[in-house]
């Protein structure tokens, strides 16, 4: 048997080809959007669709950023103490409590949407407020922040905290000056995930958003539904994905990929 054609080599080549083929499939829908977004009215190459994005769609992008940012802040404020309380103390039912808090991840968005819009309507009177939308995003996404933070905290040996306390740091000083910086990557991972999910969320938003708010993904959805396949809509979708991808790359660049362990990104 010839060395160049040995089964082992063929298997290796086929393996890598398989990976690349599937990766190609992954970016195919995105590539199609890019291709179409760069097409002018007579099928020529054009950048004008993107000018439209930063003209007519600025408001939608603005809402998306605003909602994402507010959601991130609230997520941080509730997830950090919760993670600490879940990892550093022992009490019965801890695992159950964690499952109880993670459950929103497994509720289909349409169900969360209909349930929230009805309670906002009849119980909370939140339908006309931007806070209703933000809280809906919070409940759907904060477990994504909680999980990597819990993982990071669990991997952090308790000796650092004990050392800080023995050196005379108060509980709060320990928390702020030792624990926080050390679990930074975990928190970062959580923020990244939350940002990606909330920034691109359209379904729950579709149900609960007040009439005066249209986020970018909802705008994409509405335009696809009603106006058909416009290159300008494709351009907006491309911009959204590029922003999300840049966030991911930024994170990889700062922390590497290992902190996404235990989350929903590899």
């Amino acid at each position, binding site marked *: 048997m010839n060395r160049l054609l040995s089964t082992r080599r063929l298997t290796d080549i086929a393996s890598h080809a*398989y*990976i690349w083929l599937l*990766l190609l*499939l*992954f*970016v*195919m*829908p*995105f590539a*199609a*959007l890019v*291709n179409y977004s760069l097409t002018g009215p007579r099928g020529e190459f054009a950048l004008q669709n993107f000018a439209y994005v930063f003209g007519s769609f600025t408001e939608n992008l603005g809402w998306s950023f605003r909602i994402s940012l507010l959601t991130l802040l609230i997520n941080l*404020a509730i997830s950090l*103490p*919760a993670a600490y*309380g*879940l990892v550093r103390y022992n009490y019965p039912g801890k695992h159950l*409590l964690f*499952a*109880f*808090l993670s*459950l*929103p991840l*497994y*509720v*289909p968005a*349409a*169900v*969360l949407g*209909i*349930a929230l819009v*009805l*309670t906002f309507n009849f119980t909370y009177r939140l339908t006309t407020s931007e806070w209703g939308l933000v*809280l809906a995003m919070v*409940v759907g996404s*904060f477990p994504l922040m*909680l999980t990597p933070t*819990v993982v990071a905290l*669990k991997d952090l040996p308790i000796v650092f905290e004990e050392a800080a306390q023995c050196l005379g740091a108060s509980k709060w000083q320990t928390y702020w000056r030792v624990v926080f910086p050390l679990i930074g990557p975990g928190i970062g991972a959580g923020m990244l995930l939350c940002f*990606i999910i909330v920034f*691109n*969320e*359209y*379904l729950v938003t*579709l149900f609960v958003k007040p009439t005066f708010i249209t986020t970018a*993904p909802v705008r*994409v959805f509405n335009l696809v*539904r009603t106006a058909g396949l416009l290159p300008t*809509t*494709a351009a907006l*979708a491309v911009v959204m*994905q590029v922003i999300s991808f840049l966030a*991911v*790359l930024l994170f990889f660049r700062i922390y590497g*990929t290992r902190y*996404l362990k*235990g989350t*929903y*990104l*590899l």
Partner: protein
Amino acid sequence: MLLLVLPAIAIVVLFLYYPLLFIVQMSLTEGSSYLSPAGPIYTLQNYAEMVSRYLPNVLVTIELAALAAIVDLIFGFPFAYILVRKVRYRNLVRSFMVFPMFGALYIAFGMRFLLLPGGWVYNLLKSFGIQNPQLYGLPSVVFAMALFAFPFMVLNIGTALSNIDPTLEEAAACLGAHPLQTLQRVLLPLSRAGIVAGLMLVFGWSVGAFAEPLLLGSINEQRSLAWTLYQRGVVQTDYGLSTTMGIVLLILAFAVTYVALRQSKGVLGE
């Protein structure tokens, strides 16, 4: 210490558990009678209707999600295996794999361009001599759903596979096992938990699919529950029926999620 977790608990109780209970109650009322001044009319009518009129909707939802899960398993197992055992450029692969995460909406939207007359897929099929292919329908919907959930499958199987010592495969090969025998007798049994968890998670995530059936499906796929629920609830304000669909959807998603979580080790560990 419970004080630290309290805000999180408050959020989920107020904005998840209470609303879910609320729609359970709502699903037991007739139409939009909850709004009427005479007070809600309690009835099991909605659930009866789910069986008599909307059973096909439930079935098509299950069918799509199950197919997506199976497609993901078939393509995801080899993918995860190669990724874990042979690939050094894993970070690059991870970067590519975040694209589906950005949302099913963009996938479905992008695929519409591919399937359009003149789109890449359309032209490809035409070059194979297939004229006027019916591209909107079940295969496209399942493909989009599978693409969206693929990373979850790979994650679950990959975790299971990376916990298997590669020496076991070498041992099997040295003992005379064909690669397929190694797969069947060593790899599959040892990664079973990951496979089951992956299947369940993909199914659980896919039952709620909204954009894919709507944008890529024929009338048949557009009957899936999430989209029907939206129309009945938001457009036609038939709260009773749409919340009932929500409950059914929830049960579908939770039943499998429960199995999945029991299979995979919790984040908090032992």
